[in-house]
């Protein structure tokens, strides 16, 4: 499989301040999630891939095209939906999307046809002749998506696509992203603060912190191999409980008021926990058993 994005020691500086610090990795999945706290460098990474930010060291390749040497080729195969408002207020949606299609190289008639199709596809078919300035926030997000797909890119970069959307609009956006992923015609990079959005749509996740990669994982494999957790709330004599559970292979972190967070090994059965509670005459007020989520992966990466 051809790598979608290859980063080789990619560094970016704004003045003297390093923003991206020698990123090196290869991303190959159909949908890639880009996560990180504010200021981690996610948007800078996207803008560097698009050739907006000057590279101070290393390089990157997008679907085989070097971002320093083939900037134009990279932009020709990428569709970009920016995070913030990016529209031309006094144009109708169809003119706007058509113009963006023409700028991407589509002939005028084909751009018009694709603009109508893209607007119907994202659900703005009925409102396509309205001025963009009159659109609601949700509609603007959809218009931005339409302009990003009008030229049929091979890689679609979506920066916070569900920002400011109400729950039905968010579900619609997630459904569109899944549909595009399942079409098999386009790779997607989804940059979002909403872990649930990434978990629902992405196959591979890259987590950035302070301009460095802190975690890179295949979500499918991670879900298959991840560890299981038990959150426990007990009343009674809990002294020595941590050591007893550790003897069974559990990593146990005590919390306040008899609460414990346990990471349990393979083969561990809850019956063993009940056995210990019975022996120590402990009352188990709450036992919740769950698997590793993207939130756990993210928080762990942030702690590291």
């Amino acid at each position, binding site marked *: 499989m051809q790598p979608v994005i290859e980063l080789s020691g990619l560094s970016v500086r*704004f003045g003297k301040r390093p923003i991206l610090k020698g990123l090196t990795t290869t991303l190959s999945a159909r949908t890639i999630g880009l996560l990180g706290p504010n200021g981690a460098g996610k948007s800078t990474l996207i*803008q560097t891939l*698009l*050739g*907006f*930010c000057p590279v101070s060291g290393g390089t990157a390749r997008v679907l085989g095209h070097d971002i320093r040497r083939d900037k*134009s*080729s990279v*932009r*020709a195969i*990428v569709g*970009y939906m*920016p995070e*913030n*408002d*990016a*529209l*031309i*207020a*006094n*144009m109708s949606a169809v*003119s706007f999307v058509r*113009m*963006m299609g*023409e*700028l*991407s*190289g*589509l*002939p005028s008639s*084909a751009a018009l046809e*694709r603009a*109508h*199709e*893209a607007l*119907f*596809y994202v659900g703005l*078919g009925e409102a396509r002749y309205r001025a963009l300035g009159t659109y609601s926030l949700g509609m603007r997000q959809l218009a931005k998506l339409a*302009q990003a*797909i009008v*030229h*049929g*890119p*091979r890689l679609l970069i979506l920066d916070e696509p569900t920002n400011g959307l109400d729950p039905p609009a968010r579900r619609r956006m997630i459904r569109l992203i899944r*549909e*595009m992923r399942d*079409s098999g*015609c*386009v790779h997607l990079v989804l940059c979002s603060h909403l872990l649930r959005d990434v978990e629902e749509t992405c196959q591979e996740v890259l987590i950035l912190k302070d301009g460095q990669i802190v975690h890179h994982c295949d979500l499918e494999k991670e879900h298959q191999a991840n560890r299981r957790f038990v959150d426990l709330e007990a009343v009674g004599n809990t002294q020595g409980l941590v050591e007893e559970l550790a003897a069974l292979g559990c990593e146990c972190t005590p919390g306040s008021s008899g609460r414990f967070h346990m990471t349990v090994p393979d083969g561990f059965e809850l019956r063993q926990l009940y056995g210990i509670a019975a022996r120590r005459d402990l009352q188990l007020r709450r036992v919740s058993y769950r698997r590793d989520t993207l939130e756990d992966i993210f928080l762990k990466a942030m702690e590291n």
Partner: protein
Amino acid sequence: MAVYKRNYAPYSGRLTSRWPRFFILTRYSYARLFQSRFLMLLISLCLVYPLGCIAFVYLSHNASFLRLINFRGTELLSIDGRFFYTFCVVQGNLACLLTAFTAPALVSPDIVNGGMQLYLCRPFSRAEYVLGKLTGLFLLLSLVTWVPGLLIFVIKSSLAGWGFVRAMDWLAGGLLLGLVIWVLLLSLTALAVSAWVKWKNAAGALLLGIYYIGAGFGTAVNAVFHTNLGSLINLNHVMYVVWADLLRYDNGSETPLRHACVVLVLASALCLWLLSRRVRGFEVVK
């Protein structure tokens, strides 16, 4: 991606050639500009003087008209450097006014609405963006400056014969070059102002200020410091010096041509630098 299917499909048709893509911006800019009736009125008013000149040139070769006014001289009005210098001054100032009304809406809406990154994330460079916007303004201003100027020259030549063309061919070249320089300077200044000033009215006022308040400021500098270097602040005056030289007309200015040329080059370079600072796909917030 057919409408009835409503699912995503890549584009597999042919692509357009890269170099003329900047015209797309020009085309869409015109579509927006010509929606304004006021602009159409302003363009019509800018063409009143050239139409008057054309009528005058025609009538000065019309025997019936000359007999009617009982004219007995050799030429009603000589079509020479002075005539075209006056034409340049009148049409040049009208072009400036037209720019102040049209140009502020060219770049600032793209920057204010964050549209710049949408243009530049495509195979479309910053230079092409500026070229596209510049071409729009250049063609519009050409319509009221060198195009009617050359039309007057052509009409005069057709009426006066090849002798006039052979004797005055430098006039056509000087007119074309002088007005093209002016139109380019106006376009660059207007784009730079539009890129930096968000409000249309303020941008228009600033543009007029650069060209007309600069004249007053330059006169004040000349008076206070007993020099003529203040005239170099006045871009209108600088251009008059260039026009006078190209059209071989003595307008009484003491400013040397080379100083005027240096000012024009510096003003254009400053505008390009200002544009390069604003026309970007991203903005670093300090």
